[in-house]
């Protein structure tokens, strides 16, 4: 049976806001993502210069070497505005919560193999500080970037990393004790094996060009660290001792797939814009890739022993494939 619902039909005067219609045509309704993103950043006539950066306007495209005719070309393929973003993350959160609950209620952490436990605690716990740094950098890109299209997802990315830092903390409390978190922080600050990575992270804190920061953090560091930590190392531990770590790091692995869609898309669009961008992005990628590989090598070794080298090669080739696809080969 066909049901035909009728409502009173009132003909609208227009489909969307004029600045949106100018972009997509006047005869179409705009998606929520488009209406909430396009041209939302102030476009003209700022009243005062920042007292904290009088060389620039409040929103200033010259805070990066990258140039775009239209900064709103850097759209997020995931179409995250706040509503779709929080709902997507809430779904990941629900799964992660169920996994933590599963591990805890069945005592799987208590019965976990002790040598795998040691590897997991030594490797994953200091990464909570790397994630804290990523949170800081995401805030920076959002604050100093240009155009809502890219600044919006930069904040989401940064807050995701805070969530990751908190999930890693919970992993530490599930598999270990507060004392293990303390020891991990000590290692982060003092152990030689962590200093290359800590120096990398701290060097990103002083980058003035927010797009270089985007490359250093989102493209290169995460592009190597996540496949290493939540691919290579997790698989090794799972093979050794069962999927407890896989369950406790599920958020991170699923998140990385999602984040990469956005990271790759913006990199590609920025690189395709003009040869100067392409050259600049390639130069940044090459520089930071070199540093990241050097920083992560000893950590891969620590977690994977003599499989560390092969694992690094594997994740590096994954990153290189993404860079090539974006037209930004290092």
């Amino acid at each position, binding site marked *: 049976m066909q049901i035909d619902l009728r*409502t*009173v039909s*009132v003909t609208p*005067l*227009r489909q*969307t*806001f*004029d*600045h949106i219609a100018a972009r997509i045509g006047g005869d179409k309704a*705009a998606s*929520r993502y488009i*209406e*909430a993103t396009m041209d*939302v*950043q*102030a*476009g*003209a*006539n700022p*009243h*005062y*210069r920042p*007292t*904290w950066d009088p060389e620039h306007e*409040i*929103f200033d495209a010259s805070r990066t070497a990258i140039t775009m005719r239209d900064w709103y070309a850097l759209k997020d393929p995931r179409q995250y505005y*706040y*509503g779709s973003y*929080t*709902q997507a*993350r*809430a779904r*990941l*959160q*629900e799964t992660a919560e169920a996994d933590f*609950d599963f591990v805890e209620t069945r005592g799987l952490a208590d019965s976990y193999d002790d040598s795998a436990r040691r590897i997991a605690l030594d490797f994953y716990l200091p990464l909570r500080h790397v994630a*804290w740094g990523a949170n*800081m950098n995401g*805030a*920076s890109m*959002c*604050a100093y970037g240009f155009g809502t299209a890219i*600044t*919006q997802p930069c*904040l989401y990315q940064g*807050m995701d990393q*805070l*969530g990751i830092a*908190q999930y890693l*903390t*919970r992993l530490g*409390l*599930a598999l270990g004790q*507060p004392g293990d978190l303390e020891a991990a922080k000590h290692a*982060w*600050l003092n152990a030689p094996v962590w200093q290359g990575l*800590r120096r990398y992270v*701290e060097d990103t*804190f*002083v980058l003035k060009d927010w797009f270089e920061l985007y490359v250093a953090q989102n493209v290169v560091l995460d592009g190597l660290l996540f496949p290493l930590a939540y691919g290579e190392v997790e698989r090794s531990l799972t093979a050794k001792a069962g999927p407890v770590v896989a369950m406790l790091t599920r958020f991170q692995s699923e998140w990385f797939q999602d984040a990469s869609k956005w990271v790759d898309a913006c990199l590609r669009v920025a690189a395709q814009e003009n040869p100067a961008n392409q050259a600049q992005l390639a130069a940044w990628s090459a520089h930071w890739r070199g540093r990241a590989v050097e920083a992560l090598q000893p950590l891969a070794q620590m977690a994977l022993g003599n499989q560390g080298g092969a694992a690094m090669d594997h994740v590096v080739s994954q990153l290189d494939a993404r860079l090539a696809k974006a037209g930004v080969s290092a």
Partner: protein
Amino acid sequence: MDMKANKKLGLKQRYNLMTRDLEWTPTYQAVQDVYPYLEYEGIKIHDWSKFEDPFRLTMDAYWKYQAEKERKLYAIIDAFNQNNGHLSLTDARYINTLKLFLTGVSPLEYMAHRGFAHVGRQFPGAGPRVACLMQSLDEIRHAQTQIHSLSNYNKFYNGFQNWRHQHDRVWYLSVPKSFFDDAVTAGPFEYMIAIGFAFEYVLTNLLFVPFISGAAYNGDMGAMAFGFSAQSDESRHMTLGLEIIKFILEQDPDNLPIVQRWIDKWFWRGYRVLTLVAMMMDYMLPKRVMSWKEAWEVYAEQNGGALFADLARYGIRVPAGWTQACADKDHLSHQAWNTFYNYGAAAPFHTWVPSEEDMAWLSAKYPDSFDKYYRPMWEHYAKEAKEGRRFYNGTLPMLCQTCQIPMFFTEPGDPSKIAYRESSYHGMKYHFCSDGCQSIFDHEPEKYVQSWLPVHQIYQGNCFTPEADPSQPDFNPLAEVLKWYRMEMGRDNLDFEGSPDQKNFQAWRDLATRN
């Protein structure tokens, strides 16, 4: 919190592991290079760990609860849209309050999003950082849910369609715009006092309760749903504002005079922006919630009074200008609406003379001022309009250099006398509406001489499209400015009576209720 592990750990201790414990002091880069903006305002912070995190929200809980709020909110917005909810409004005049909101307030939510990302990055303490970054997230939520809620009104009514372009150019919209530009261009500590404390704590109820309750009273379920949903975020914001000011004051006694000066400045600037709300409450809501005077008495005098009594132990006193703001409550809305009535040709929303019924309400609410000073004025305008001479002021108003509002404010104690103040700086004369605005300028003239004053800009010839040709005999500067504003004459502006909004609303309502 959704943490079940380690039940031995209390909420506070668990939360510390999830936030403060994550941070460290950099050693490979100088701390001043990582946090370059912490010293230039003269604020002294000795121990960031003393900041108390009142709402101990981890990201997983944030996503969970905020997603639930979003689902509920969008379900209501969708239902409202599907059901032609706008036809249930009390009266189409109400829609003009929403135009004011989208063009004036929503862009500020976006500025707050960027501002909190900036201060969140710049504060080294984990506690304030996390709270500021969650607020940055919340503020883009507000900007976007407002854009989405009001998107449906844009389809049917005029004055919403160029909100972005107009916020950056139109004469009265530089009032809210300059307010927030002032905050984000200030240092990070001033920003927190300006927005976190003065705006989000002291004054917020004066913005949101009128708009949200106004929505509820006038059948606007969409805006009401947005409003209530946003308010729960506001509780976290208010708390941050209160905690941050306590923290700053407790860190060093030298911070007190700096903070007091900021409180004085931002109370005054914020109060001036609320002029638009005062006129909205008293003149634009067909079904009124309360008068501006009543709202001021509850939310400023009572609530604010309790707050400043609490802060007295730090040496904080009520803001300078408090007394004047209290005294002005009898006059503010009337003087403001008069100005917008005058300039009704130049604003992308409608204005109108209050009806007899409206004026009876105003008399009752303002026994000391309405009948004496303002009723004769409205009766005069009504008579003129009836006789075909609806008054539109053909000149442009002088704007205050600081708050950028037209200088219609009167002297405290004498509502028949316009208040004028002036200062000289580097051989130029600057004009102000009040002692409060003058003192803000005098303290930082280098900042306020930069103001992009819409009326000055028009007179300087900066507000015309490339096609405008002043050499033509029929050159009409007002018409050309309206084109530059992307306002359509006769559609977006002028009196509500005879407007397309009025005609359409009536026709559609008839369509929905008659056969």
